[in-house]
């Protein structure tokens, strides 16, 4: 078993806001992250896959092919977008880093070749805050 990680990035706006709550409750729970007119981040995404090395190529998976999947199904949908308003796979989901990492996992899974498993989606919202999701 070997693990391979691909690093991508995107820039997006968002706010943390629960529509079932009042403005006051949102501000109380989410603080300045609930700012009505959004704020934004440079997100850094690390996606780790796992599996056996193909004896003919020496690859677990062509890292370029993994990048194309991440670009097409994740980054192009998120980059320079508003996570609350513009992203089909985040509709109705609170745009926290935790939820975004779990949603990105679902975006990637259907596109991985046979014999390659997704191990971890690691998402940095800032250089100091990151979440990891292992599909558990």
């Amino acid at each position: 078993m070997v693990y391979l990680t691909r690093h991508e990035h995107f820039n997006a706006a968002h706010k943390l806001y629960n529509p079932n709550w009042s403005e006051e409750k949102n501000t109380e729970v989410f603080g300045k992250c609930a700012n009505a007119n959004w704020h934004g981040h440079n997100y850094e995404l690390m996606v780790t896959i796992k599996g056996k090395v193909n004896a003919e190529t020496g690859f677990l998976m062509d890292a370029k092919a993994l990048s194309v999947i991440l670009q097409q199904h994740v980054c192009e949908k998120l980059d320079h977008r508003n996570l609350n308003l513009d992203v089909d796979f985040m509709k109705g989901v609170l745009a926290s880093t935790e939820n975004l990492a779990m949603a990105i996992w679902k975006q990637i899974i259907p596109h991985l070749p046979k014999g390659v498993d997704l191990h971890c989606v690691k998402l940095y919202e800032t250089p100091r805050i990151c979440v990891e999701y292992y599909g558990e």
Partner: protein
Amino acid sequence: MDNKVAVYRKEHFNAAHRLHNPALSDVENAELFGKCNYANYHGHNYELIVKVIGEVNPKTGYVIDLKVLGDLIKELVIEKFDHKNLNLDTVEFKNLNPTAENIAIVIYNMLRPKIDKKYELKIVLYETERNYVEYPA
């Protein structure tokens, strides 16, 4: 040999923005600014580096107290821009395109009057890890 030293203070803020020139049509804006012009904004983790050059004070051994400089940057800049939409939530960019260049100039103009004239001041602003600007050039 003079006694001048450059000291630096790093701060950061997260903000939303879009690049848009209201004097141009939507088509021209989209052409000029590409995805930075998307209507619903995007955002960045801005990293701000404030550089102060001056003589070392023989009494303190400091050029400037970096804690004092940090507090000044937080009060004048970070409080205004952090977790805000630069286009919508700040007076500074009501009529000014919030490019990294313009943000750096605005920050310089916010800080310059509060920092003694005996110091040289320079602003370095990272919009992403790969894009950054410096003012004055």
